[in-house]
Structures are given as C-alpha cells and as structure tokens.
C-alpha cells in the first residue's frame, strides 16, 4: 500500500483483495477472516479488519499497539553470566523476542484462543527438530483448554500437563527468552501466553528443572560442578531434617558416640521432642519467608537477617529448640533454594515434610519407605509422554552428559533423547585447526 502524495491521509494499492495477506497491507501479521465470530474477536483485541467490496474474505491486520512494560531482566531466574532477557506480557512482543533469538524459517508459531474471548496462546516449535507427534499432542491439549478466566501460564499448565494432581511439576515455566530458545533447539515446544510473561516448556522431565540458562553461559567444569551441587542441595534439603529426627528420636545408634553425647547434652531440659523442635523451626522459617515476600525488598532482606540470627538465637536461648535444630533447618532452607525453579522448591518442601513425619514414627525405616514411594511415583510419571524420571529411570546414560553434568560443547553430540527429536544429533562441531603463528616479516 502506498501513501498518496496529497495532504489527505489516504492510501491506494494495486494488489487485488484476494492477496492482501501477501502484499498491500503493510502490517506485521495479516490473517483472512470469513466468519463474524473471528472478526468480532479481532476487533475486540485491537486489530483492524479491512473489508473489500466483493471479496469473500475480510483481512484482519495487527494494528494494535498496547501499552507494555519494557523488556527487563528476569526477576525469578537470576544468572551471573550469559544473556539476561525476560519476556513481558504482550504475546506479539514475546514472539518478536523469540524470533530475534531464533532466526530460522523453521520456527513455527501457531496461535489459538483460550475460550471465546480470554486471550491468545501461541504454540512455538522448530519444524524439522520437534517431534510432530509431540507438537500435535500439545496443540490438541491447548485447543481443549476451557477459558474460565483470563489466560495465565499457571492455569493452562495445570490443565494441559500430565499428572495434574501430582505435586511434581510436569511442565516448566520460565520467563527467560534464552532458555526457551535453547529448549526449542532441543526439540521441545514452548507455549507463550498473552498477558503472562512466563512461557511454558514441554515436555519437562524432572532433570530439566535442574538445568538453567547459566549452565550454558559458563565453563563446562563450573556448570557441571554447580549441577552436582544442586543435587547435593536436594539431598540435604529433603533428608537432613528427617535424618536428624530419625537419629535423635528413633535410631540414635547411627550417630557417633561423641556427637551423640553433645546432642544429648544440648537437648537436656528441652520441653519438646526433636520432631516438635524441627516443626517449630519450620513454622518460624515459613512465616519469615512469607513475610519477606510481602515486604518491600529492602525490608525483606532485613527481616531475613533478623529472622535467621535474632529469632534463631532467641529460640535457642529460650530453651525451645536445640542449637543443632537451628543448624539443620538453616542448611535445609538454603539447600531448597539450590533448585533453580521455584515450583520444585515447593514440591520438595512437601516431600521433606512427609519424610520428617515418617522419620519421627519409623526412623531410618520410614525414610527408606518414603524414598521408595518417591522413586516408584517418579518412575511412573510422564511429562507429555516422556518418562519423568529420565535419565535415571529409564536409565539413559547418554543423556547424563547434559543433565547431571554439562559436558564441553565438543562432546555434546546428541540432543537429549526425552522429547524424541526428529533430528537427534546436534550439528557437528568441526575440528578447529589452529595455524602455527609466525612472526610477521617487516
């Protein structure tokens, strides 16, 4: 469409109306509409609908410019190094952000409305990489999402994910553009939701929740070490309080005598059992955590410090819990946050609580029993058809290089097998020949 040279603001075009989606209309996205329901929805969402006399199709052009916040840093997934860009709430901007990072014609975007008027959702994937069965599966699930309220990533995830009643998240949400781009390259699909800065990534086995964008922004040995530390943190967070309760309340013979004597001495005169002590501290900690979330940032830090030092010391001085409990709970609280995704932190807190109760009643036997139940449950779960506990069950040693560790780029030759990508191999890394440098002759 070209602008007329006169002062009147009018445009003319020579492109026939039947081809206005290919030329003529100079908006970003132009879609043909042939029913009033779609036209109504488009007008309500700020698009411009152009009717041409005699043409069977009306053209809906994306002409809306919404007020939106700037592209900022992620607030929940911090990194030290690497790209640091978060999505915002506007779907068009989200797609544009992704397109800027993934500049390939293989990037496919399919949009669908959730409910009649509650917002748009985009399914994004890489054609030729993502498994078509997976894409179709996610698309079918999205198409069936009922539009009860305004579309949000969490509510959509709660409807479309496998095992919707499970406490384990089977779909990952992230606000990082780079992370979504990386997952698309692995053959996964992403779901972008208009009005929510969090994108959903599917499928997401549990190991996927321990992989962050920063792992790919640093040295392989550092990333591998950090990943191992996350797993150690998981072990400490889930098992330490339970082990403390089991050892002090049911099975003291697992503690060396010298430690047992000091623990016994520290607990002399305390009014409550080890379990009660731990529960009191968990309660205090959760209260402080919730308070720190609600308070302004500056005050939140202060409350955290006050809670950790002052309240902890005061509780010990008051003779309510032993000093060992403070150590155990502090380590546990810190360890939980080694999980990069907040949802998983919440899950492990629940598991930790079950473990704690089992330890109090059954000691080490209880911990083993809950662990076995956990393993059975995790092994039986799936995320969009992919085994949730992979690469441990089923055992896929070839996937360990980019789940438990992060091997150097030259050794990462295959994509993770979980989403069964069409092309399982990464593009090969050519052998870099370093020419022998010679002194320049003047």
């Amino acid at each position, binding site marked *: 469409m070209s602008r007329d040279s006169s002062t009147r603001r009018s445009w003319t075009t020579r492109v026939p109306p039947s081809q206005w989606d290919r030329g003529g209309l100079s908006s970003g996205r132009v879609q043909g509409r042939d029913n009033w329901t779609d036209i109504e929805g488009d007008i309500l969402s700020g698009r411009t609908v152009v009717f041409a006399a005699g043409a069977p199709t009306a053209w809906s052009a994306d002409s809306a410019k919404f007020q939106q916040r700037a592209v900022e840093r992620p607030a929940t997934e911090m990194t030290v190094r690497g790209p640091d860009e978060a999505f915002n709430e506007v779907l068009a901007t989200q797609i544009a952000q992704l397109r800027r990072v993934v500049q390939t014609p293989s990037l496919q975007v399919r949009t669908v409305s959730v409910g009649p008027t509650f917002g748009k959702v985009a399914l994004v994937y890489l054609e030729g990489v993502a498994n078509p069965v997976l894409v179709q599966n996610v698309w079918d699930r999205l198409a069936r999402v009922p539009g009860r309220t305004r579309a949000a990533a969490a509510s959509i995830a709660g409807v479309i994910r496998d095992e919707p009643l499970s406490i384990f998240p089977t779909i990952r949400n992230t606000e990082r553009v780079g992370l979504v781009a990386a997952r698309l390259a692995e053959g996964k699909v992403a779901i972008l939701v208009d009005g929510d800065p969090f994108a959903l990534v599917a499928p997401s086995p549990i190991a996927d929740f321990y992989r962050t964008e920063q792992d790919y922004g640093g040295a392989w040995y550092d990333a591998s070490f950090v990943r191992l530390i996350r797993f150690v943190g998981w072990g400490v967070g889930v098992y330490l309080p339970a082990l403390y309760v089991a050892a002090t309340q049911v099975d*003291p013979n697992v503690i060396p005598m010298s430690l047992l004597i000091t623990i*016994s001495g520290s607990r002399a005169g305390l009014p409550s059992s080890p379990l009660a002590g731990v529960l009191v501290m968990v309660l205090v900690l959760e209260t402080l955590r919730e308070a720190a979330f609600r308070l302004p940032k500056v005050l939140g830090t202060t409350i955290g410090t006050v809670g950790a030092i002052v309240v902890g010391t005061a509780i010990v001085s008051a003779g309510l819990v032993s000093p060992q409990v403070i150590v155990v709970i502090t380590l546990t609280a810190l360890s939980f946050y080694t999980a990069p995704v907040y949802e998983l932190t919440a899950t492990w807190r629940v598991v930790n609580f079950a473990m704690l109760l089992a330890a109090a009643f059954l000691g080490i036997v209880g911990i083993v029993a809950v662990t076995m139940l956990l393993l059975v449950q995790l092994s039986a779960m799936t995320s969009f058809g992919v085994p949730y506990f992979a690469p441990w069950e089923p055992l896929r040693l070839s996937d360990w290089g980019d789940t438990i560790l992060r091997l150097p780029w030259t050794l990462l030759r295959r994509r993770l097998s979980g989403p069964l990508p069409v092309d399982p191999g990464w593009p090969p890394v050519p052998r870099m020949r370093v020419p022998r440098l010679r002194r320049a002759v003047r």
Partner: protein
Amino acid sequence: MRSGDRLRAGLALIAVCALLLTAGCGDALPVEDRALVLALGIDPNRTSAAGDLDWTFVLPNATVTASSVGRQSPGTQVSGVRVTAPDLSTAMNALQDRLARKVYMGDLEVFAIGLATPSDRARAAISDLVQFGSVPDGYSVVATPDPATRLLSVVTTQDAIPRYFLTLYLNCSGCHRHDWRVRGWQWWAAAQTPGVVPHAVVLRPEAGSAVVAGEAVYPAGPGPALVMPPDAQDGLFLTMSRTTAAVVSGLAGRRRLSVSRLTGRARTTARLVGGRLEVSVRLHVRGVLTSQGGVAIPSGGAAQAALVHAAQVLVAQHMLDDVGAAFRWANREHCDPFGLTTQALLARPRLAYALAPGSSVWFPIDVRMTVRADVVSASSFT
C-alpha cells in the same frame, strides 16, 4: 471414589499401619531420655559365693554440650555405676533401677575385662553382649590387671568428654607400635572357633593414663586369663600383620643402631599334618634407620650401605626372636591366639564339623619363619 481407588487406598492404609506396627519404633525414646553407656567392665566379686561379677557401667556426663566441652573437671566427665550380678541382663536391670533414663548400650565403645575374671565368665559376658542384639559388636575389648573401674575412669588432660580416652587410645591409627584393637566380634569369633583362643591387650592405669602390660589370652575353661610376655606379644602382633610403628634398638658390632617406624606384613600358611600344625610365616618388615648412638648417619657411600645392612640384620634377628617367642609361648601354654587353627581347619571341613564351637582342642605348632627386612636410612630423605 471408585471401588478400585477405594481398594487401593485401603491397601495403602493397611501397609502404613503394618509398617507402624512391625517397625518396632513405637517405644522409641529421644536421645535425651537415654542413659548412654560408654564403656562396660567386669571383675569377679570377691564376696559373692555364687560367683557373681561386678559390672561397671561408665556413663558420660549428660550435661555436656558443644559449648561446654573442655570445661568439665576430670572428676565430672564420666561416672561409673557398679552393680553385682551373675549375667548381663541382670546387671542391666540393676543399673536401670538406679537411673531415671533408659539404659542405652547401642554405642558401647569399650569392654574391659579384669584379669582376675575367670576365662569362661569373660567368654560368657561377651557372648551375652553379642546375643543382646542392640549392642553393635564394634566395641574394643581390653584387659586390665586392676579392677576395671580404675581403667575405665581414666580421664586425661589431653582429651575431654565427648571424646573418651580409651576409645581414642585404641583407635589411634599408627600411634602405637602395634594396632592393639580387638573388636567385640573378633573376640567372640575367636572364642567360638575350635582351637583358637581370644586375646586382648592388657592396659594398666598409671598416672592418669594407660600403659600396655602384655596380652591377655583367654583359653576355654574356668581358669584365669594367661598373660603373654612383651616379646611374645610383639611376635603375636607381627604374625597378625598389625605392627604399625615399632622401634628396634640394639648393638650391631660396637655400634648402637635404632630403627623406627617399623611396619610388618606377614603371610602365614597353616596345615594339619599328623596331628600337628605346620606353620609357615613369611615376614616383611620395613623401617627407617634413624640414629646411630648419637652419631650422624653418613649420607650415601659404602659407609651408609654397611650401616643399613647392619640395621637390616638387627631388625631381622629381632623379629625372628619375637615371633619365635610367641610360638614358643603358644606351645608351652597349649593355645593358639594367632587363629592359625582356623586356617588349617578350613582345609579339613570334616574335622572342623566334628569339633564343637569353642572346644579346647589344640595342636602343637611347628613353625618355619622367613624374615625380610627393608631398612632405609633417614639421611637418604634429607
């Protein structure tokens, strides 16, 4: 809820209840409600006509905390409770009567046997401990010439509760000339094996510490323990490859040599031939020549080589003497503290089956020894 789900929920409930009932944790007590027994000692009761034993239970001070460690005076770190009883169960009952906490033996560290205790009573006591169930058999067994209370109550100024002197003393790896530790299960296994006799190091309390005073050997029967002399004790530990930091000092010609940091490894074979135990001992000893009667050791050259050779001969001779003394003592006392009979009986299963556990069968020992001594000069390192 569907019937299948109801069934599944019912089964899960039954499983949880079964776990609660069968795990045996219902009567579990928190650690602060338990009286931790650190060490146990037995002595014959002189006044009892029924042959009762004096049982000494050593309990740590229950008020020790991480911040008060080292501030307790020696007299308040541990307390010994002495009861007279014929066996372990009765003794524990008597102890329980005196305490407000439940007696807990799950972390017993030391079991001391008074030397006057009849051998069969010592064997019965350790057998009781093994069968008691909740006492792990990793505790150390020692013997003591005085009433066991005196040794068990030794508190030095170097260590304080929660670290117990006797445990540290026995577990100190590479500190003493031999590894003195004999675990409860080792003692019990030796007592149960036909022809083998258990043994334990004799520790004598002395000036707020403990001194090794031989090796007590417990043959089957009601007699008292036999005590090995020091050279035979050295030979016994050499044969068992438990020499970790011995020192040999002596004259080689006119020169006084001292070889330290001696470690020994022994390969023994034993077989029964014509009712006699034919034993072959191949010793390999390593040590460092550290001094030469106050004169510096020459570094390198023929002089040093001659000196090292002399030291090797000295060490080899010393080791041969010690091992020989041990076997001579064993033959004289008709017992096998080395455990060689086990090795021989493994090749004769029919004979082994015919012998009752703990029977006092004994085979005379014929021994052939080979010693290889590797000595290096300390000056080679400098």
